[in-house]
Each structure stands twice: as structure tokens, then as C-alpha cells.
């Protein structure tokens, strides 16, 4: 924390070395007594001194995880209210409440109490809808947060374990959401429960045993609601809370990652202290999230259980879908061809098992192992606290977009009937399209994304070597026109070139590679060489110092009338040498050396913490 000291020193200068002792206001005076009492017993002062000044960097995308966290807090608060009235029982009762259209209908107590909460408890429907909206947002925010972490490479060393905690949180979040979705015991949730019952049964050989274990006998039995209730309000929230605590503790321990920029190094964090800046911002954001969820709960109807009616296994409703976060599994099962084996007395339901259990497992396994795969490819054992710009790792970005595309098509499958009715297309055609699209779509998305990333790399290089377009068109005496380019700032040049560059490795054919690795490891090396070529082979190399200096030198020679890029030249290399821009050498050399003073870090409004 070099910066605060400097600030204090400057203030001291201003006061000419004669700072008067600080006069505290009445609030501080009143608070000092209890604060002192607490400090003497809990040691809060030293704890706070260390942690309240903790620096966090500022970016909107760092708040996505906070949305998830605050949604979870809202879930806990509203959930407590719901438990006061909800009855987790499958005992039958006859409804005799306010809702006319169910009067006299036989139903479970779980459903009856849910309708009771919705119609007869003051504020019950609002709290129920808030709870449900918060759950939908919780998972959505987790996914956005994980995408941010993925695309910026924030999962790299030393944060692999925290990534795994996040993957765990997401998986458990899905289960928690599903358990909550099933509790009202209405027709829709019962259908969802039946769906999961099918998933469990589809596990080859042991499926039916697991089903009997979970449901306590034949589906639906009379145990599943109390069991899900226990899991939903006690077991899973406790696990989630524990994981969140560990997740946040690791954030504090690792310190937050930051986007590249002048003054930002692997060894520092540039931003603001927790107190007072992030106390205010994060605290305020909590109330914003709470407010948005309250408004949604008040104004937007969600899961009107009373219209679905009580669950009876012989009833079903058209348009039965799970909540959105299970939609991709639903979709995969909807579009899956009917593959089934019958061997001896056993049934192997690949039609359910592969898209259901298989897809869920695949999603989380792929997410879990990805950081380790990428680390194996890069061979990079250093710590990374500066985030990647997604363009600088095109293959990772392309993988991410391909996965999103695949997920999106599966997701669409979950609503294939809604698509059919609302866009007046054939249900079968939607299904056939998606069967192809889930495989072809990701490949196309991968190729396109990778090309876009490399295009963006070229755009960065263009700015670096030729400057920014000024928008000023100059007419030459000879009659030609060109656009004047202005050199970019050293800060921007630094941002464009700070990233670590990976190059594909090569393996020699004589049994050893250029590093002298013996033949024994050759196969392994060849595989890695292939992987690095796949990963980095198409990357645009960063311009060398010589190239940038050359560009700058040409600019100096030609002066302000130097050629812009491309207009009169026909080759890319010509474009390079004729580009006019200065200040690049400065920016570029900053890229790898640690010695440079952090540009722009001596700003009054910023603070820097050492790692």
C-alpha cells in the first residue's frame, strides 16, 4: 500500500508539518465507547485495519458474481418466510381455501399449503414469487459470472481450485433449484419430478435400485417431498453457504484479478479499498438486487401453481418445461433419437441416459478439467493476476462460444413445442434441425469466433503500428487522398501488448526435440506440440521491438505527411513500414519488463496494493 502513505505525506506537506489533532464528530464519539469495548474482546481493530483497506479493482463484469451472491441472500431471507407456512407432507387433504377453482379437490398438503401461501397468507404470493425469481437469477448470474471468468482466463493459476468451487456451486445450485421447483407438488413440478425419476431409472443396471432408494419405493411414494424439503432447506443451502464462504475466502486470499492496463502488474492490484468505496458500492448493489427482485416478484407472475392443479401421475399439461436452467437437459432428451437396448432382462435407455445423465456429467466434467487441460497445453506454471483479453486467446474464446452455442441449441430443444406453436413451424422439423445443429453449430461458432478474435488481434496490431484513425482526410498535391493516423497513447500501447505470448512448440524428428527431451517422452511431446499448434498456431505474433521502432522511425522520417495504412500500398508489410506512429517503443518495451514505472499509477484517485 504505497499510495496511501504518499497521500498522507502530501497532506502533511500542505499543513506545513503542523497537522492539528483530529477532532471527531459526535457520531464517532458516541460510537467509540462500544467500538472500544468490542475491540478489546474481539480484536476487531487489527482485523479491520488489515481487511478494510483491501483493494479491489473496478469493473462491471466483476459484479456478476455479486448478483449471484445477493440473489442467494434474498433466497435465504424469503425462504425462511416460506418455511413458516409450507407443509412438506404428501398426506392427502381436501382444499377448502380462498381459491375457488380448487375447492373440494383432493391434493397433498404440500400443494394445499403452497396455494394457501399464495392466496391466504399476507404477502405470501409476493414472497413466493420473489423466492422463485431470485432462484432463476441466482443460476443465471452464476452462469454469467463463470463465463466472465472463463473468457478472461481468471481460472488460471493460482485460481484453479476456486474455479472448481465455482463449478461445484453451479452444479449444486441446479440441484437446489430443482428441489425447490418440485416442492409445491403441483402438476408442473410433479411432471418435472417424474422427468428426474426417468433420468435416475435410465442409469444402466442400478437405476431402479437408486430410484427405490431415493423415493423410498415406487414412484412417487409419499417420502420424496419431505426428503426434497430437507435437502432444499437444510442440506444443500448449508453446502452452498460453505462453498460460497470458501469461494470468497479464496478471492480475498488470491486478491482479485484485474484487467490489463497501465500500472497494472502481476504483482499489484489497482483499485479502491473495501472501506469505504466497495462497502458503499457493494452494499448499494445488494439493495439494488433486492429491489429488482422485489419488483419482479410484485409485478411479474411466476409459476402460478394454482392453475396447474395438484399433481396426479395420470395428468400432464402441454408446455411442461423445467425452469430455464434445466432446460438444456430437457432439450437434449426431447431431441434424442430413441436408442434403447434390451439385453437379457435389462433395458439400457441410452435415449434418456446419454442426453440426461451423460450431458449433465459432461458439462461439469468439461468445465472442471478445462483449466488443467489449458495449463498442460501452455505449460505455463506462472501465476496470473492480469486477466486475458478474450481476443488474445482465440482458441479458448472459441471453445467458450462453441460451448455456449451447443448449450443454446440444447436449450432451444427444451422449448421446441413453444417454438413450434409460436413461430408456426413443425415440431418435427424443429427437432430434426436441432439434432444437426447441436453438432454443426458449435463447430461453426468455433471457427467464426476464432477468426473474429484473430481479426481483433490484427486491429490491435494496426493501432499499435499505424496509430488510430483520426478521421481527418488529407488531399495530396498530386490529388490522392488519405486518412491521417494519430499515434495511440503509451498507455493504450501498453494495454495492447502486455499479454504473455505463447508459441507452438516443435518436436524434432531425431528422437529429441530442440530442448533435448529424450525419445521416451517423444509421443507425449508430439501430442503437446499438436495441441500448442492447435491452440496458438494461428495467433498473431506481437510486433517485436524492432518492428515498432521501425514503424516509429518511418513515421519520424515522413513526418506528418507519412503514408497512412493501405491506401497507396498493396502489401501488409509495406503497410507496416509506412505506418506513422510514435511512442510505440515505449509502450512495447513495457510489455515484458517489470522494471517500468506503472504508467498512470500515480493518479490521486487510485490506490495500489502489493500482492
Amino acid at each position, binding site marked *: 500500500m504505497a499510495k496511501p502513505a504518499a497521500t498522507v505525506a502530501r497532506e502533511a506537506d500542505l499543513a506545513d508539518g503542523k497537522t492539528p489533532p483530529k477532532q471527531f464528530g459526535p457520531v464517532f464519539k458516541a460510537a467509540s465507547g462500544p467500538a472500544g469495548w468490542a475491540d478489546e474482546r474481539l480484536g476487531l481493530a487489527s482485523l479491520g485495519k488489515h481487511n478494510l483497506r483491501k483493494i479491489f479493482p473496478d469493473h462491471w463484469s466483476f459484479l456478476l458474481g455479486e448478483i449471484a451472491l445477493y440473489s442467494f441472500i434474498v433466497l435465504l431471507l424469503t425462504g425462511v418466510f416460506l418455511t413458516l407456512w409450507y407443509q412438506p407432507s404428501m398426506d392427502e387433504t381436501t382444499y377448502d381455501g380462498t381459491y375457488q377453482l380448487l375447492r373440494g379437490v383432493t391434493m397433498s398438503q404440500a400443494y394445499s399449503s403452497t396455494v394457501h401461501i399464495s392466496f391466504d397468507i399476507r404477502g405470501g404470493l409476493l414472497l413466493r414469487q420473489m423466492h422463485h425469481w431470485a432462484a432463476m437469477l441466482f443460476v443465471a448470474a452464476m452462469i454469467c459470472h463463470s463465463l466472465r471468468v472463463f473468457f478472461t482466463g481468471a481460472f488460471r493459476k493460482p485460481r484453479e481450485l476456486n474455479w472448481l468451487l465455482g463449478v461445484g456451486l453451479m452444479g449444486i445450485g441446479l440441484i437446489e433449484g430443482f428441489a425447490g421447483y418440485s416442492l409445491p407438488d403441483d402438476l408442473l413440478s410433479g411432471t418435472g419430478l417424474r422427468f428426474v425419476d426417468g433420468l435416475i431409472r435410465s442409469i444402466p443396471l442400478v437405476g431402479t435400485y437408486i430410484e427405490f432408494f431415493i423415493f423410498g419405493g415406487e414412484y412417487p411414494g409419499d417420502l420424496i417431498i419431505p426428503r426434497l424439503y430437507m435437502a432444499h432447506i437444510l442440506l444443500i443451502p448449508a453446502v452452498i453457504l460453505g462453498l460460497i464462504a470458501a469461494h470468497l475466502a479464496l478471492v480475498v486470499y488470491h486478491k482479485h484479478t484485474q484487467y490489463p492496463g497501465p500500472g497494472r502488474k502481476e504483482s499489484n492490484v489497482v483499485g*479502491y479499498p473495501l472501506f469505504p468505496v466497495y462497502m458503499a*458500492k457493494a452494499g448499494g448493489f445488494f439493495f439494488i438486487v433486492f429491489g429488482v427482485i422485489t419488483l419482479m416478484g410484485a409485478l411479474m407472475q411466476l409459476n402460478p401453481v394454482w392453475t396447474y392443479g395438484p399433481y396426479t401421475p395420470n395428468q400432464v399439461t402441454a408446455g411442461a418445461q423445467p425452469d430455464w436452467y434445466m432446460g438444456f437437459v430437457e432439450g437434449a432428451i426431447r431431441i434424442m433419437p430413441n436408442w434403447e437396448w434390451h439385453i437379457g432382462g435389462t433395458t439400457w435407455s441410452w435415449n434418456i441416459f446419454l442426453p440426461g445423465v451423460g450431458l449433465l456429467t459432461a458439462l461439469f466434467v468439461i468445465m472442471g478439467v478445462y483449466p488443467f487441460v489449458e495449463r498442460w497445453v501452455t505449460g505455463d506454471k506462472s501465476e496470473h493476476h492480469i486477466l486475458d483479453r478474450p481476443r488474445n486467446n482465440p482458441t479458448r474464446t472459441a471453445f467458450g462460444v462453441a460451448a455456449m452455442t451447443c448449450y443454446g441449441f440444447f436449450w432451444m430443444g427444451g422449448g421446441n413445442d413453444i417454438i413450434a406453436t409460436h413461430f408456426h413451424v413443425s415440431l418435427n422439423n424443429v427437432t430434426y434441425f436441432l439434432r444437426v445443429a447441436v453438432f454443426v453449430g458449435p463447430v461453426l461458432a468455433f471457427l467464426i469466433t476464432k477468426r473474429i478474435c484473430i481479426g481483433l488481434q490484427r486491429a490491435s496490431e494496426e493501432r499499435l503500428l499505424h496509430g488510430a484513425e483520426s478521421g481527418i482526410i488529407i488531399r495530396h498535391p498530386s490529388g490522392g487522398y488519405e486518412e491521417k493516423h494519430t499515434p495511440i497513447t503509451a498507455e493504450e500501447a501498453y494495454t495492447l501488448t502486455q499479454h504473455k505470448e505463447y508459441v507452438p512448440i516443435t518436436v524434432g524428428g531425431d528422437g529429441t526435440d530442440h530442448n533435448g527431451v529424450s525419445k521416451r517422452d517423444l509421443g507425449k511431446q508430439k501430442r503437446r506440440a499438436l495441441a500448442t499448434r492447435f491452440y496458438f498456431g494461428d495467433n498473431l505474433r506481437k510486433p517485436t521491438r524492432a518492428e515498432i521502432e521501425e514503424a516509429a522511425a518511418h513515421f519520424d522520417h515522413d513526418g506528418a505527411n507519412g503514408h497512412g495504412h493501405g491506401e497507396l500500398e498493396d502489401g501488409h508489410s509495406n503497410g507496416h513500414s509506412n505506418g506513422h506512429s510514435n511512442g510505440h517503443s515505449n509502450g512495447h518495451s513495457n510489455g515484458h519488463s517489470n522494471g517500468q514505472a506503472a504508467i498512470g499509477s500515480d*493518479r490521486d484517485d487510485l490506490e495500489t496494493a502489493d500482492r
Partner: protein
Amino acid sequence: MRFLSSRRRHPVAKPLLLVFALFVMGGLYAILAPSDVSSADTTKSQQVEAGRKLFAVGCSSCHGLNGQGSSQGPTLVGVGAAAVDFQVSTGRMPLAYPQQQAPQTKVSYNDDEIAALAAYVQTLGPGPEIPSASQYQPSGLTDEEVARGGELFRTNCSACHNAEGAGGALPNGKYAPSLVGVSDKHIYEAMLTGPQQMPVFSDQVVTPKDKQEIIAYLQTLHERPNNGGLALGGIGPVSEGLWTWIVGLGVLVAFAVWIAAKGAKAK
């Protein structure tokens, strides 16, 4: 009396007696037979005749000149007047071009013409008659009976029509239409005749009282205020998920951008 008895063997007595007997029989028939039947018979036949003409112009190209059906359309023998009334007065028939399923469009005939068509098709073979208002209009049902209609609806109808009657998709571009805003009469007729993909729910399976209860349930469900706020399209979790992402996350991300941009800014 002498006059009659002395002339009873007169040659014209027998023919006269026969004429007299005919008069008596005719008079008795005129008195005893219900007069309205004979008058209705003439209007009925006129109506059937009008229906036949309309049928020949508007329907026969697909259903055949005698309603026997063709490769383009099914036979109408035995479908009954109720089926015609449902199909034509909801604008499903006449069909503009061959489709997977007849969509609900603008009604092409007026009430008299529809009645005429229905009367004509009813003459092709006996089928369900157009129900009267007392049959399809639910009245005097208790709350429990209306709720029972909900149970019947969820057991028999919601698998295709959705629990709220919002409709749903069927294979190959077919669909179960929305029941919101459909008249009681048409719902009753649909159950009675099983139009398009729909199975017939005959009076033996779903009794007229059951049908009334189902209609009453739908009526009440669709007239109720929408508890809990905006219905968001009323198509369940798909639209709810969409709104989560657009409104929920969209608004919160906008706030996040705002918060991050506010105050002292770390570049």
C-alpha cells in the same frame, strides 16, 4: 233414415261411401296429426335444399358432391350438424388450401347459411345435433362442481391444450389451439365431434354435466384476475426464463455498469 236405408243399394252408394270415408280419415288426420310438423317439414326441406346448394359451391370440391369425401377431404356422412356448426362458425372451414390443420380464420358464412349447411350435412347420415344453450351453458354449478371440471380438464384435455388452455404443439405442424376466448358452444361441440386431431369425447365418456363443468372451469379460469402480476405470455417456464434473462439480468447488469462507472473511476 228411410231415405238412407232405401237407397243403400243404389249404384253410387259405394263410391259415395268411399269418398265419405276418405273425407273422414283425411279430416281425422288433419285434426290429430301435429300441425307444426307439416309446416316445419317444408321449411326444413327448404333449409336442406339451401344447404345443399351452398355445399355444392363451397364444400363439394374437397368433400365430394354428396359429402362422401375425396382424396382432398374426409367424408361428412355421419359427422352431424354439430361438427359443421363448429368447423364453419369458427372459420376453420372452408379451408383456403390444404394444410396440416385447419386454422381459425374469418367466418365465411352467416348464421342462416351455417344452419343450412348443418341441416344438409345432418341429412347425409345421423350425427350429433347442434347443442342447445341449455345443454352447453353451465348454470347453477357449485364451486366444488366447477373445481371438479378442472380435474376433468387436467385429466382429459390439458395434455394437449395446456393446464390453462393456452394450447400446445402436436407432431408435424399440428397443434392444439388455445381455448382462451372460445365460446361455450364451440367447446361443447368440439368435445362432441372431435374436430381435426382431437378425439371425440362422447356423452357416454364425458357426460353432458361433465362437459358443462369443464366449460364452467375454463370460463372462471379465464375471467379471473391474474394473481401475481403480468402473465408474461402465460406459456410457463420458457417465457419465465426469457424474462429472467432479459429483465432480471438485463436490468442488474445495467446497474452493474452504472455502479462501476460511478464515482472515482479506476481506469
